[in-house]
């Protein structure tokens, strides 16, 4: 039974998940009762191995999947009262494989598709399209067919087409798979900027280096449950838990754990931090 939304709802919470259970048609339980609150402007990473339920959770947020029990409340309204198209106005979902989305003969047309579907006027559609194309650095290729672009560019087109719908929340499913170092940096810069501009960002990934570098909050999932919800530093102190959840902690974290006797804290997230602590640890020990 899906509970009615209470009268006093915390306006700061853009996504509110209560007791979410999800069972697939074949009887497989993918989500075992989750509770999660996401605040406006959060930069959240949902991490877990294959089968942890992270994609199932994400699809429950934008209505592609409906809860078997429990509730998902977006911006104060339960998803049970909204269609996928209506939710698309608030929650933008960029899929892992951009080739599953691209079908138009030019980047511009592709990016226009979303806002057109949502019923914006021609003027609004044109404006949003232009802004998104610029924000994702696609101006140079905007008249080319998406299929002729590199993987990195196609990913950016896919995100731009979600951006043009002007959602408040961005859910990005493994956005950096297959990208080389430069493409990864460029893409993550754009995503960081989205968050700086006030958008809520939810990254679904298993790349812990990425999480350490960009996310402000990490939710670790394993076997359909949330096993840890903390800032990145907090998550990396528990290597055991990460390994049990089929995740590999970044090398810097592994190293930090081994150097704790030298005064290096376990929450270290980057090479700079590690070196800083080593250098100041030496000083303190004199």
């Amino acid at each position, binding site marked *: 039974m899906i509970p009615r939304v209470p009268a006093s709802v915390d306006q700061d919470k853009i996504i509110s998940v209560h007791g979410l259970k999800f069972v697939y048609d074949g009887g497989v339980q993918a989500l075992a009762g989750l509770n999660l609150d996401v605040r406006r402007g959060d930069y959240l990473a949902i991490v877990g191995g294959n089968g942890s339920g992270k994609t199932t959770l994400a699809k429950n947020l934008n209505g592609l999947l409906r809860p078997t029990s429990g509730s998902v409340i977006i911006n104060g309204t339960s998803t049970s009262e909204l269609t996928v198209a209506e939710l698309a106005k608030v929650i933008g979902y960029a899929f892992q494989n951009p080739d599953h989305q691209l079908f138009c003969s030019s980047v511009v047309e592709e990016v226009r598709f979303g806002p057109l579907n949502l019923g914006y006027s021609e003027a609004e559609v044109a404006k949003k399209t232009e802004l998104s194309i610029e924000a994702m650095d696609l101006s140079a290729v905007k008249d080319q067919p998406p299929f002729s672009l*590199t993987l990195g560019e196609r990913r950016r087109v896919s995100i731009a087409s979600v951006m043009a719908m002007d959602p408040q929340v961005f859910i990005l499913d493994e956005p950096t798979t*297959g*990208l*080389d170092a430069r493409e990864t940096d460029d893409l993550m810069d754009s995503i960081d900027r989205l968050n700086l501009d006030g958008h809520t960002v939810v990254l679904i990934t298993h790349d812990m280096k990425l999480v350490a570098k960009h996310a402000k909050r990490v939710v670790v999932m394993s076997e359909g449950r949330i096993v840890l919800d903390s800032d990145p530093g907090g998550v990396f102190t528990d290597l055991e838990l990460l390994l049990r959840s089929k995740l*590999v902690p970044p090398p810097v974290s592994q190293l930090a754990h081994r150097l704790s006797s030298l005064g290096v804290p376990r929450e270290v997230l980057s*090479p700079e931090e590690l070196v800083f602590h080593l250098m100041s640890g*030496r000083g303190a020990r004199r």
Partner: protein
Amino acid sequence: MRALDLQDVRFKHRGSDHWALDGVSLQVEKGEFVTLLGSNGSGKSTICMLSNGLIPHALPGDLQGKTEIFGFDVKEHSVAEFSTKVGMVFQEPESQLFCMSVEEEVAFGPENLAVPREELRERVEWALELVGMKGYNDRSPFSLSGGQKQRVAIAAALSMRPDMLVLDEPAYALDPVGRVELYQVLRQLKEQHGMTVLLAECDSEEAAKYSDKAALMKDGRVISYGTPREVLKDPERLRSLGIIPPQVSEVSALLKERLEGSNFSFISVDEAERSIKEKFTNRKRGREP
């Protein structure tokens, strides 16, 4: 005789103006584990496709220079002939497994070569055992995880009994656990069976751990070739080439910068732990300034 001998190789695909390989000289010795590192478009996949004759036979174009695979000129022998010397694994697990069961997939190659039936069964069991997929014979490829699919793909190549395994970004679609399993299988193949392994990657973390040699590629050329320690120690340079550096090498570079007189150069967590503890413990005990 080398496993792979490329001398001043240039290649462009038919109908293209762009040289995918623009003067590559590379030698891979038998039994070596070599990683080709580079950004997308650097030519690493092209070298993979060249290593078993897919270039130029299945992917035609203008191929110049000398390319020899175990002593045989690539232009003069078919892909089928090379298939018993070189096994190929592609990056998409789903599209390279086309049979209805794991054992059919692994038997497919040798069946095409008319290997007698008793031997077929032997080879299938042997290959599955090597990749840790024993007992999965009747499973359908669709029901396997990404990591399992890639291991079946490796088994399907191994059953041809090649001397070299070539893998084009094999961990692309895998989660961290799948990635680790894959590299462990490859390392075992090299160490216990003398297999030559050549693989293409954009992330150098595993190359640092497992490779004998690594090649840095850019714009169709090999910029640098040597042991991981020689080639992977400069994270700035790796990033500029689009290659993700081993994370601890960034620690090593920073320490070298900030700690005078230090000569850190580690690329793996174990090495890093050892070097740092040594250096910093000595300083603590006042042995060094």
